[in-house]
Each structure stands twice: as C-alpha cells, then as structure tokens.
C-alpha cells in the first residue's frame, strides 16, 4: 500500500497562478471548445489534474465526456478539430516537465511529441498507415528524434518489436499493418510509441477494439512496460475494469468536467459522487454474486452544446433534490476535498453522501 499512498501526492490540488508546478504533468483549468454552426461545443470545460512519473492515471467517462479531447489537447493535436473547419479554442495551462505547452513554440511542442509524450490509439488498424511497413513507421518515429542511420533505427525497431512480444520481429518488421492480427497490431503501435522512451504515455482506449483474451495480454504488457520504463501513463477508457487493473489514480469525467478524482482504491470503495455510483451500479460484475438487477443511470449523457446549468449531472441524478434551494440546478459545484487526496464535485454534504453510499448504494452492488 505504500505505493498507493505515495501516488496520492500526485493529486495535489493545483494552486492557480503559481507558475512553477512541482508535478511532472500538471493540467490547470483546461478548456477545449469547438465552435460549430449549432453553437460552442464545450468538450472540456475546466479540467485540472496532475501526474507524477511512474504513476498511472485512469480517466473514465462515457462517450462525449471529454476524455479523448483532453488527451489530444495535451498532445497538441487539435490542429483540425473533428467538428469542422474551425479551430478548437484551447485555454488553461498544460505543464509538462516544467514547460507550459499551450504557450510554447509549436515547433518545440512538436519536438516533444513522440519523444517526451507519446500516444497509443484505440484502433491500431486505422492508426497505422496502411501503405508503410510496420518497420518503416517505427524507424520513422525513431529517426525524427534521433540522428541515427536507417540501419541503427531498424535494429532499434526490431528490438522494440521483440520487447512488446511480437514473434520473429526481424521478419515481422517488414510486414504491413494488414498482415498483423488485431493484438499484434496494437503491440506494434505500443512499440512505436515507446521507441523514444517517452516520459508520458497516453493510451486512449487501448484495448477497446480487442478481444478479451488479447486485451488481457495488452494490459499486462502496458503494466510491465511501465515498470520497466518508469513513464507516467494516462489511460483513457470507459471500462472501469481496465482502469482498476492499471491505475494508481482515477479521474471520472462527466460533461467535460471532472466530477471525482482520487486514488483508485478510494474511488472504487468510497466513491463520493452520484455519477460514480451510477457507473459502478451499471456494470454487471463477474467477481461478485449475481446481481438481481443492475442500477442504471437514468436518461442520456448531456449535449455538450447545452450543458445543464448548475451541476451537469443534475437531470440524471437521483439525489438532485437532496441539497436545499435548488442549488444543484443553478450553481456549478466545485471540486472539494472529501478525503485524503480525494475530491468530488457535488453539492451534497459529506455526511449525506457517506450515508447514501453506505446505506443505499453499496449494499446493492
């Protein structure tokens, strides 16, 4: 458990306007908005967190919660948004190892991409270029940041393919993505993202497109590689099982905002936000006795153009009327500390939440 308590320090609430963060990665009040014809899509709307080297942060949320947009924002990849021709409006601060990325020279950020921070994508088939061999793509990734000849880079590529468990790497290095199976492709993708020993690895739904037995292999691989390389890892997923496997800390996103964040154990065992309760109640679990019924969250995720006023979760929250004066519908709740290194954004009092969790929710899970 020492590991967990140490990880807690990574979650210090960032102090606004202090220019020198101590954490390896620190995101402060990040906003990513996309102007569209229908209105402003507030994909990420004020997100703050920090992460230390060697630690894994899990970001959990449903589609449209802003989790992928956050990762692309950190990587500086919002050059053309998926919402059309207009550029994304990004504000806030992203500090990576002492450099603020949003105000830095774009070419400097480009040099950090791939070397300091790398990314694994959900679907390796579409994320790898279909016309180039796996080896070519890895060599390219290596030679952008290392001034070596092709032969050395190729040796490095083979070495990486071997490390991620691809059999006969000296042959497969000349294979094309379509000649690889889904699992092998994701391994190659991981090899490519780790070829420069990045300090920060962002894995965006790295196993969602894979079968469950292959998913187990890949999760195992990511865990081993992290131990070996000591990078900071952000794992983005909708699957609470996957984050429970890998993460030290957990951040639950809803409607572009963080609703709860803390050490993984805390968030799983003492969740303090009704949305987290909803997620936990929605999943059938193999490790428990058969539940009679699942406890779903009513309604659908919010539109990012018209985020509900007050607490974004209030239309779906069964406890929206617990706090007085309709405050859940008018005032946006701030993250407040609900335990050691554990924050939640909810208007209910600590006592109310503890009581509801222990008496109403936990027994039914």
């Amino acid at each position: 458990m020492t590991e967990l308590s140490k990880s807690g320090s990574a979650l210090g609430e960032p102090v606004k306007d202090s220019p020198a963060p101590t954490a390896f990665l620190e995101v402060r009040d990040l906003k990513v908005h996309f102007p569209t014809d229908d209105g402003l899509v507030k994909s990420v709307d004020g997100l703050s967190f920090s992460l230390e080297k060697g630690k894994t942060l899990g970001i959990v949320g449903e589609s449209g919660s802003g989790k992928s947009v956050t990762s692309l924002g950190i990587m500086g990849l919002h050059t053309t948004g998926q919402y059309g021709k207009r550029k994304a409006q990004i504000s806030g601060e992203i500090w990576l190892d002492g450099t603020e990325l949003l105000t830095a020279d774009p070419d400097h950020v480009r040099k950090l991409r791939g070397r300091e921070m790398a990314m694994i994508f959900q679907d390796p088939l579409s994320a790898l270029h279909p016309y180039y061999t796996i080896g070519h793509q890895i060599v390219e990734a290596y030679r952008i940041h290392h001034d070596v000849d092709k032969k050395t880079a190729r040796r490095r590529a083979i070495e990486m393919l071997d490390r991620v468990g691809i059999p006969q790497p000296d042959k497969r290095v000349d294979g094309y993505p379509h000649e690889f199976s889904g699992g092998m492709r994701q391994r190659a993708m991981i090899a490519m993202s780790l070829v420069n020993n990045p300090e920060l690895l962002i894995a965006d739904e790295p196993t969602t497109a894979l079968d469950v037995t292959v998913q187990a292999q890949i999760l195992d691989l990511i865990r081993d590689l992290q131990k070996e390389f000591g990078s900071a890892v952000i794992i983005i997923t909708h699957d609470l099982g996957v984050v429970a496997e890998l993460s030290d800390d957990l951040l639950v996103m809803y409607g572009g905002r963080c609703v709860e964040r803390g050490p993984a154990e805390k968030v799983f065992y003492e969740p303090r936000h009704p949305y987290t309760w909803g997620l936990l109640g929605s999943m059938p679990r193999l490790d428990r006795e058969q539940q009679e019924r699942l406890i779903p969250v009513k309604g659908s995720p919010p539109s990012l153009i018209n985020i509900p006023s007050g607490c974004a979760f209030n239309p779906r929250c069964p406890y929206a009327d617990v706090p007085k004066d309709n405050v859940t519908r008018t005032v946006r709740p701030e993250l407040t500390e609900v335990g050691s290194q554990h924050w939640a954004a909810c208007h209910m009092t600590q006592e109310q939440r503890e009581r509801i969790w222990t008496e109403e929710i936990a027994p039914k899970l």
Partner: protein
Amino acid sequence: MSEKPEDAAVTTSAQSDGAGPKPAAGTTLTKDAAPGETLLKVTGLQKHFPIRKGLLQRQVGAVRAVDGIDFEVKSGETLGVVGESGCGKSTMGRLITRLLEPTAGTVEFEGRDITHLGVSGMRPMRRDVQMIFQDPYSSLNPRHTIGTIIGAPFKLQGVTPEGGIKKEVQRLLSVVGLNPEHYNRYPHEFSGGQRQRIGIARALALNPKLVVADEPVSALDVSIQAQVVNLLDDLQQELGLTYVIIAHDLSVVRHVSDRIAVMYLGKIVELADRESLYKAPMHPYTKALMSAVPIPDPRRRAAKSERILLKGDVPSPISPPSGCRFHTRCWKATEICTTKEPPLLELKPGQQVACHHPENAEDQAPQDTVLLTAAKEAVELVPDAVVSADAAQKARAEATGEEPEDAK
C-alpha cells in the same frame, strides 16, 4: 467432420437441463410452447463461406464460420452465446433467424424444420422469430419516422393490430420506455440508447416467441447498457419471451443468461447453466476467457496470479487447427488433442463440454499425459494455482457444484 457424438450429447441435455426457465415467465405466458419445452433445436449446423479466386471464381477454400454446432433453446429461457471475434457467434445468430442459409444441419422451431423454408414459407415464421442488432445507428432507416419503422412489421405481415397500427406502435413505445408522442420523430433525434429501444420495440411488434439479440448493448455507453439490459429483463418477465443473446462481454452474458454457450472457432466448446459455467468452468478456454476479464476492483490487482494469459491470437477459421481447435493455445494439450476432436459431452448434469482434459471434471483421456511443446510454453503463462495438481484434485472433488478456487 463428424457430428455424431454431439448428436448424442444433445439428447442427453434435453433430458436434464440444469437451469430452469425463469419462474415468472410462466405466469403471463400466452404462447404455444409451455415454459421449459424446447422452442428451438439446432442440429449439426454449419455455415461455410466459400472463398473464390481467379477469373473463374474457383472455390479455393472456405471460412468455416460455424462448423457443426448443436444446441436447444427452451421456451422462456435465455441462452447466452459468448466468444471472441471470429468464433462464429454472429453467423450462428443469423442462421437461426434464417437470415443466412446454412451449409448443413437443421434448425427446428417448435418441432418444425425451418432449415430450408423459402421466403413465403418463412413469412409466418418471421413473426415468431425476431432479431435485435448491435448497431442502433445503422439498423434504422434514417428517412423513416420511428412510427413507420416500428409499424413496418405489421404492414409486411399484413396484420392489423387491435385499435390500429398507430395505437399499437404507441403502446410498444411506452413498453420500451419511450414517449409515445415521439411517434413522428426520426431516428437521428434519439440517443444511442433510445435507438436501441426503438430496435427492441420493432422486434416486439409482432409478439415474437424468440428474440435473437446480436450484441444488443456493446455499442452503448456503460450507463445506457444497464438500462437496456434491465429493459430486456423486464420484457422477458412480462411477455414470457425467449432470448438468444449473443455478446462478447462475459459479465453482460452472465447477467442476462440462464444457460451459456461458449464458442471457439465455429464450435461450441462448453454449454452449461450459468452457475456451473462461472463457478466451475470445465473447458480450459472458458476458464481463460473468464480470467481475462478485467475486474473493476483495484484490490484484486494483487491477485493477478489468477489470470491465465493465452498465447497469441485466435487461429484463422479458414484452416482451423486439427483435433481440438483450442490445442494450439491450450496449456493442457496432449497428443490426442491434435488428432481427435473432442465430442461435446455432458460431464455433469447441465454442463456439456468438448475437451479431452477438462478442468473441474474427470479427465477424458487420462492415458495421454505428455504435454505438447506448445502446451509447455503456454503453461508458463498460466499461474501456478491453476496448473498445480492440488488444484485439479480439489476441483475434481468439488466438481459437484461448489466453486473450487473462487478468488474472493
């Protein structure tokens, strides 16, 4: 490939089904088949997709998507079908709903052979067997209002429900939890979960007996998945429906199913009632599959040692491995597994398995003890707790029902 042993297995399973149908199903049942009676029977079902090449389109091989499977579905129960991509589970679903023509084998519905019925012969059948699809985005025609979509089955079948189509459609909408006033809206005005509800309403329109759902929730968000799972549950209770639910998510399948079939490369490797399957799986593949599911519990991470990591990927269904198809990845495989295909046998009441060396049961080929080289490599990925003889002994002793090595 011989299906004879499996034929025998089916008859035994018919006599002794471990999991009965849900009790509530009987109360409101208005169908012909009484609960517990066989509604659907599948024998030796095969579907080979030919691979053609060259100018003359010569057949050079076949994707053996479904390669000889037998099972029964009883009225009022839910049969879950799990497996990884390429195991043939979706093809199986399309075969039993006759959306695909089987290469061999028979499909009997209420005792009637429907395998080779033509379009007109199938029409009355289509009322009784309905399908729900995975993708709620592409399975609804964007140019039709949901009133038209849900009412279409009535028009196709030439049926006019009591009170008219519109009234019936509105009733169906409220049954699946949608606002009946949204009758005139178009699919794009609904969220993913709502669209899946529309798909369900359409499937229910003609009061079917059997609903085949292919990955009904996998395209939906977690919180929405639970809504749809609960809805399917409620509808079964109220309408006495029989489900075949095809899914890759083992937790969802366990939640919804009474009995579960595990498929691997076009074959059923294990078919058992839910409790037996999840507490004491017999097929090594079932065991590996279940241990691979990530558990949403950070404290369990310490218990990583229980995880069985399978080597490599699922082989191609074009040229599946000889003998037992799982032998290339199995840590228990011996010589016999490469040569003789294990029949699907009922080794315990309500639990059929196709394996020479099952877990939690008597070894079917005890004389064959020498592990294959591949199996020796595979065994390194299997935690000691699973492999050790002690565990096997214990499992055998407890095979009667108690879970041998629950990880709690």
